[in-house]
Structures are given as C-alpha cells and as structure tokens.
C-alpha cells in the first residue's frame, strides 16, 4: 500500500536519518546547545509574566474583589493594622480612617494558587500585581501561606489610576425595603455612596412622618465589589449589569 508520500529507497531510507542526527550532534557540540544551565542561566521573562503576587499597599483599598474572583479561594482578605505612615500614604487613607471595620489586605496560600492572574486583572486600582519571581518551592505546606504583610511592596511614585469597574456590575436599590442603616456607606471601599433623602416615608415613634435616607451611588467610581450587598441587613441591594442601571442608582421598586 503506497503511503501519502512515496516510500523512499532502501539505502536512502537507512542513510537519511543519520544526516540529521550527525549534523545536529556536530552543531550542538561545537555550537551552543538549546538548553540552559538552569541555576546559572535563566531565560528572559516577558513583562506580562505571571509569577508571585505582590500588593502595592498604598494603592490597595481592601475591596476584596481579588478574593471574590479567585477561582481556587486561595486568596483571602485578612484584617491588618496599618501604622500611621501607611495610613497616611494610603490612597483612600482618609476614608479608611472613617471606616469602622479594620482595613483588610489580601493574603495568599500559594499552595493552592494556580497563577491564573484574575486577581491582577480585576483589581480596580492596580494594587495587585504579579512579579516575575517564581522560585517559591518550600518544604512545608505552611511555608506557602504568605500573610498579607509579606506580599506588601512599596512604590516610589504611585500611578494615579482611575477606578475601573471590571466586574461589570453595580448595586441597585429597592427603596421600599431600605431602612437607612448606613452600613453600605461605612463599608464602601471607594466612598462612592452618600446618604440622602429617599422617596419612602416612614412614621416615627412620635407620629411625625419623614423621608428616610437611602444610599445614592456615584457609579463613576463604583467598582462593583458588592460589599454593600453583602453587608446590607435587609437585602434591599442587589447587583445588576452596568448598562441596565440608571445614572442615579435610585431605582423604584415597581420598575424592578
């Protein structure tokens, strides 16, 4: 049965392979072989390389999106105490001081990490970066758990990046169930919520009626982290795709 290319002659088919291997042998004996002597020589890594994570703490706002998008749940937000200098340098430092809860910073268990780069991609401030450091082997599992402070890096000049909503979602309010508790305002990492008078009237104990305050969202700086949804005690907030939400963010219950 003839093959797709014609079968070579006997002598040719015995000699031909040697021409390749012997040529290669001479080439790599007198030239430079393809392989690198690893510990002594290293290949150049592209700037996009996804190695060990590093967090620019001054940019981090502790929104927890990186923990949210981590497919392996190997990244967790851990409460950290910032000293005064760090507090002052933090981008949203003034706001952090206002927040009641402790600031949180990402800690990573590299034993579970698969270096997919989602935390870097979805970070709204660009604080989460991936370096070209990859020699992280350890003899214990615990050695691969990197606490938040060990991932901290400092930068001389901070890039002034706009806040980008990579999550493509924003919180939307059902005004009729909102109780005006201000938890969302206290916990919003970007300070994009303000409380103002809402449409809902409620009776006070003394009989007087007033409009209870409801949150208003500044969607230009909302990052879609859904912290407000999680802390809401009455489930009056839910996330909706950006294109569907109105600019005010105030959505009557009937329309929803």
């Amino acid at each position, binding site marked *: 049965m003839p093959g797709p290319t014609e079968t070579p002659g006997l002598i040719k088919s015995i000699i031909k392979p040697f021409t390749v291997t012997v040529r290669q042998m001479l080439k790599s004996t007198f030239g430079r072989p393809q392989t690198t002597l690893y510990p002594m020589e290293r290949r150049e890594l592209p700037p996009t390389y996804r190695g060990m994570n590093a967090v620019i703490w001054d940019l981090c706002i502790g929104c927890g999106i990186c923990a949210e998008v981590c497919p392996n*749940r190997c990244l*967790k937000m851990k409460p950290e105490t910032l000293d005064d200098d760090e507090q002052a340098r933090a981008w949203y430092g003034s706001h952090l001081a206002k927040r009641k809860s402790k600031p949180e910073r990402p800690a990573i*268990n590299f034993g*579970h990490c698969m270096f997919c780069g989602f935390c870097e991609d979805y970070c709204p401030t660009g604080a989460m970066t991936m370096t070209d450091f990859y020699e992280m082997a350890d003899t214990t599992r615990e050695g691969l*758990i990197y606490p938040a402070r060990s991932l901290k890096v400092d930068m001389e000049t901070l890039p002034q990046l706009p806040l980008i909503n990579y999550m493509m979602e924003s919180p939307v309010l059902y005004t009729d169930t909102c109780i005006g508790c201000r938890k969302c305002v206290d916990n919003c990492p970007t300070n994009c919520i303000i409380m103002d008078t809402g449409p809902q009237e409620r009776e006070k104990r003394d009989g007087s009626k007033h409009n209870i305050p409801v949150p208003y969202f500044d969607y230009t700086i909302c990052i879609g982290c859904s912290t407000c949804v999680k802390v809401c005690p009455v489930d009056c907030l839910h996330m909706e795709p950006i294109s569907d939400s109105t600019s005010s963010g105030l959505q009557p219950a009937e329309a929803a």
Partner: protein
Amino acid sequence: METGQFVQQLAKRDGASDGSVLRANVGRITVTRAASQAFFRVLKEDFGFDHCSLISAVDNQTGFELVYHFSIIDMEGQMLEVHVELPRDTPTIDSITHLWGGADWHEREAYDLMGIYFIGHPDLKRVLLPDGFAGHPLRKDYVYEIHEEEW
C-alpha cells in the same frame, strides 16, 4: 438543503414540534420520547446526519432533558439540536448506538453522571466513575461536601 427547510420537514413528523433555526446552518427541534427512535432513524437514513456530536443530559429539576447534537460531515456543516424530555421517575430512552457508533460512550457518560438509562445499549456501565460509585453526581439533587481549608 436549507436549514429551515429540513427543520420544517422534520417538524411535521409524529411527535416532533418546535422546529426553529438557531443560527446559520443550525436547527433546533423537540421530539417526544416515544417518537424518538423512529425520528432518529429518519434523521440518519433520509437526511444524512452521519455524525453524532454530543448527547448532553440536563437535569431540569422537574424532569430530565436529553439534548442531542447531530451534524453532517461536509463543508456546509449542517447541524441539528434535538431535545427530548424525559420524566423524572423513569429516565429511560432507546439507545441510538446501533445508528451512530460514536454515541456509545456519550450514552454511557449520560448514564454515569446523570442516571439516564438507555434501552438497548450493548454495554451500559459507568465510564468515568468507578463501578461501585453511589448516585449520579451531575443531578441537581446530588448531595456533596465542599471541603474548605482554613488557613
């Protein structure tokens, strides 16, 4: 043949309904379980769908749904998506292994992971899970544990 054309022709058959065109060269049709065997035979022999791409079993909570994807091996790439509804308590259907040899392991996989029984399959046993495995994991009511490691 145009996709719309043969979807219309097929939809006229017994037990077939909801013929529609999803996109270019791709049709969709729903068939009852009783009429499925005759329908598939016509599909293979009269309409020339010689390739069984995929058999997916879907757990709809109320019942099961089998989604067959058939195609023709030519440059047109005509494709037909056939939906068959199965009741939850008796998820059985006639096997199509004798029509398409490639459907063999797809049916075994649907049995393995979703618990659909194919009548007339030559060797219906688990393919991905071990033989003694209890339950069918892709069902929505399958109970499983999630291990979240604390650190």
